[in-house]
């Protein structure tokens, strides 16, 4: 028995997210003059691409029933090592930058997978440990020296300026940043893997019931290696995007606000912490909400000292709303729900 289309739409989490985005945009458009311009929107997307890519990574890990909080350390490690290597060996190629960063990312990711699968260490604890392992190692063995704008290899700064669909406006030339293109490619690739391959079905299956997945024939260990390797892969990409965006490489700048925002984006997007559920659409919408918030609170007149608080409030309220809805629907279905910590 199929439910009617409008009713099905209302039941979907993504609908509410879209509504929130529309609402927020209306508020912003009214409150400020600069919001609805092409320039601003394109700039917002450009700045948020990094977050978007990391969110896809976190999303995949979460669906598989695990969690990976080491990705900020992986991203900064890939980035900094690539930059330092390029400076040390006089390489000036964006491909080298990506290559090195991605290689490190995948290596770190596979190590995470090794710890989690071989020693059955809970992914939360394992990645908490490797976060400090990777970041500590980076600062200790590679160095803490910042690389500022003047010394960043030009291939990277050039890359940051690339854009497609260029057009002219009064403010100057505008285009869709290469960062957004990369983000789009990441979305497409992740979507394909999760929706169109058995590997993706396996990830969802493991998130639903790992034991059952094994019995059904899925190669659970291999799939887990892929998941965490993929997180490392995307983190490596994001590392270069990030340095290309801010044109500054500071290894201590661990982007740990990134951790909170990524988790917020993915959870707001409707992915369950318990695994097995979640959509890319939801995650992307969640990312959009977060990046809109991040950039525009100042426009709404909120002093910069309070932005963290505001974002915190939004996240907390959003998370409460999501889980309260889930709880109520379970009670309605007659399930016996008890208060618990996890």
């Amino acid at each position: 028995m199929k439910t009617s289309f409008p009713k099905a739409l209302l039941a979907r989490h993504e609908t509410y997210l879209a509504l929130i985005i529309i609402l927020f945009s209306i508020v912003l458009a009214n409150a400020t003059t600069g919001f609805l311009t092409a320039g601003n929107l394109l700039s917002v997307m450009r700045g948020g691409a990094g977050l978007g890519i990391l969110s896809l990574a976190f999303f995949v890990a979460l669906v598989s029933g695990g969690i990976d909080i080491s990705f900020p350390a992986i991203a900064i490690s890939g980035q900094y090592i690539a930059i330092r290597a390029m400076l040390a060996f006089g390489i000036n190629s964006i491909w080298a930058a990506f290559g090195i960063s991605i290689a490190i990312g995948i290596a770190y990711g596979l190590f995470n997978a090794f710890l989690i699968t071989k020693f059955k260490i809970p992914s939360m604890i394992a990645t908490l440990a490797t976060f400090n392992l990777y970041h500590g190692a980076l600062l200790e063995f590679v160095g803490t020296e910042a690389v500022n704008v003047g010394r960043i290899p030009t291939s990277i700064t050039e890359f940051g300026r690339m854009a497609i669909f260029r057009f002219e406006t009064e403010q100057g030339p505008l285009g869709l940043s290469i960062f957004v293109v990369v983000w789009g490619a990441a979305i497409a690739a992740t979507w394909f893997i999760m929706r169109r391959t058995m590997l993706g079905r396996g990830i969802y299956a493991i998130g639903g019931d790992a034991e059952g997945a094994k019995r059904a024939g899925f190669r659970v260990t291999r799939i887990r290696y892929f998941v965490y390797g993929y997180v490392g892969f995307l983190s490596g990409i994001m590392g270069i995007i990030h340095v290309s965006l801010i044109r500054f490489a500071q290894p201590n700048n661990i982007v740990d606000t990134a951790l909170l925002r990524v988790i917020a984006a993915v959870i707001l997007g409707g992915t369950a912490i318990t695994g097995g559920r979640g959509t890319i659409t939801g995650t992307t919408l969640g990312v959009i909400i977060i990046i809109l918030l991040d950039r525009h609170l100042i426009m709404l007149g909120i002093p910069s000292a309070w932005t963290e608080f505001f974002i915190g409030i939004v996240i907390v309220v959003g998370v409460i709303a999501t889980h309260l809805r889930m709880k109520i629907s379970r009670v309605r279905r007659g399930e016996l729900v008890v208060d618990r910590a996890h």
Partner: protein
Amino acid sequence: MVQALLEVRNIRKAYAGVQALDDVSLTVAPGEVHCLVGENGSGKSTLIKTVGGAVQADSGEIIINGTSFGSSISVIQSIRHGIQIIYQDLSLFPNLTVAENISLSQMIEQGEKLTNWKRIREVALRSLAQIEEHIDVDLPLDRCSMAQRQIVAISRALTQGAKLIIMDEPTSAITAEDVRRLFKAVRRLNEQGVAMLFVSHKLNEVFEIADSVTVLRDGKKVGDYQASELNQDKLTFLMSGQNLEYKPFQFDPEKEGAPLLLETRRLRKVNQFHDIDLKIHAGEVVGLTGLVGSGRTELALSLFGLNPPEGGDIVIDGSLVRIKGPEDAKRHGISYLPEDRHGQGLFGHQTIADNVVATVIDSLRGTTGLIDARRRDRIWQEWIDKLKIKTPSGHNLVSSLSGGNQQRVVLAKWLAVEPRVFIIDGPTIGVDVVSKARIHDVIQELARTGMGILVISDEVTEIMQVCSRALVMRKGRIVAEFTDLQSVQESEISQVVAGIDGSEVVA
């Protein structure tokens, strides 16, 4: 003679000094429905796991369609030769759709790398059609009822070319209608030559569906029988090795002048139960029976505060009370022994001692506000002795106990509260025959001390053995009351339970 589909010969399997299977042999012919029955601990789970490859036997022979595998077979071999086991938990993915659940195993086996959604749906629909079933294949599994999930599990087994489907306790958690639906599917399969091996301890279903029955007891085979040559009593005798003594419990509250402890008046909750007028007097054992879905557990949980009613009154000792949570129930002297012993009744990895005092911990405070350790230790030791819980030490984990002993721990926990009304839901599920009888004795003894007991069970036999009177629930209402259990036939009550006594329930 038709070649046997499955033949196991002289299987032996021991675990840490316990002989789980002792020289067991079994034969299943194509297209037959074979039931494997036995009490808990009889070895039936071990046997099917051996056949399915999840467990390796110590010795014996497994022959499938004439091919011998020696004493052990791997899971993959077993599946490739057409054996599919559906465990009680069904091993499905609640977060995936029906179509995915049915088709994924086949996709994996065929080495598919990309998902072809069209094919996934086609395979699922075709499999469902084989047993003439209709389920919306795009539904996420967690929206499906238990019965639908069983159909999904069977369909999945079919996609892998099952010739023998083994189902472990398939009828434990589904309603009567669902059982009929399941059996219909089974008969379709039989017509196509697929054999079924049911593992069950529910005797009624055995008779309705089985062609042949194999009885196990204590790891040994008692015998193979045609279903037609057995009846309830005979089967019970074979399973338990003893003629169970009926110790009927007679108690007339009016005659004894027993006080009314608990009364409900027109208690109701939408879609669960209506018009419940229930009376429990001190000293009686009231039985409440009905099928899954009749509302009996919902009603019990309501009295315990976990499922507050929407209308009607609960009266205790003559005054109206509101029970909003188990704390309130406890305060009013109501204890509840849950159906799901493991999940709801026990703290698995904690000690027996901690489990027993969990309900009374608040009242163990001494003058300093700290727990009086001596009193605490005395309480659990007392209960271990009183209920004869077999354990070397109260500090052992509760998970180290047998099913019967675990049930005694849960019993102890709720007796420690010194309740006046004790609601016992499914007292002997998963308990061996000897412990079962002991638990029944305990229940009757408790009643004699002046407690009012409500026993909920779906085994009419048990109700008749333990209770002084019985109530039957169907579709949320109490449809019958039997006050003189001596003079009533078990089949009479069973018929009312199943709703084939001619009386219709006005919903």
